[in-house]
């Protein structure tokens, strides 16, 4: 058996479940943000920053950014390994795919650190 070295958890089944669990977290967080924006009073800095000052909201936001990173990596990996292949791109496919995946990994790390800075920085 060949073990993939670039997917999230080295196992398709673990990736599958990680994709679902992170999806539920992101669904819950998206609903929370949409409902907060729709039901709240006229949006103001005071109300907006008050919302993100609660520890529970900060933790939920950090959890969501972590779930986003997991979810995005698995998704981008799946797409890259489906479309950036030798049958589509020829001999240079592996180099192109690795370049693309390294770019995705960088963006994932940036999002994670940026999210921590926004939600926990000050």
């Amino acid at each position, binding site marked *: 058996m060949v073990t993939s070295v670039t997917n999230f958890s080295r196992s398709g089944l673990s990736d599958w479940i990680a994709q*679902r669990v992170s*999806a*539920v977290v992101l*669904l819950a967080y*998206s609903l929370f943000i949409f409902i907060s924006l*729709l039901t709240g009073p006229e949006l*103001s*800095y005071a109300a*907006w*920053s008050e919302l*993100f000052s609660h520890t529970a909201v900060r933790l939920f936001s950090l959890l969501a950014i972590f779930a*986003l990173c997991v979810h*995005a990596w698995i*998704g*981008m990996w799946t*797409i890259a390994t*489906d479309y950036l*292949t030798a*049958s*589509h791109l020829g001999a240079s496919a592996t180099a192109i795919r690795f370049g693309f995946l390294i770019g*995705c990994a960088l*963006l994932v790390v940036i*999002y994670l650190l*940026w*999210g921590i*800075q*926004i939600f926990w920085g000050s």
Partner: protein
Amino acid sequence: MKDTRPVNLDLTAFRFPLTALLSITHRVTGVIIFFGVAILLYLLELSLKSEAGFAEAQELLTSPLAKFVLWGVVSGLLYHIVAGTKHLIMDWGVGETLAGAAIAGRITIVTSVALIIAAGFWIW
């Protein structure tokens, strides 16, 4: 080499049924969201930084181009959420048939189009 190894199918040789089109849209919107998150995080950071930052973010979002870009990212997110919810329901074993997938696909389109139009009104 064994000739039963999996191969990459030639996608250009297929006629895409509705479910396949929904699947590729799910992937495309996923990529849009992945890059769009940069815009959302930028706006969020700006709006939480200070009173002035909040005003600046509001000012930014008055331009038609910014509204359109935001609507685009939000639309991608809405579709991805609706189609993803359908996935989770089907993973639970509900509607896991060819006919079920076709019905769920139509529900996905109607729901996400309605939400995307509503989001357009909300943003403008």
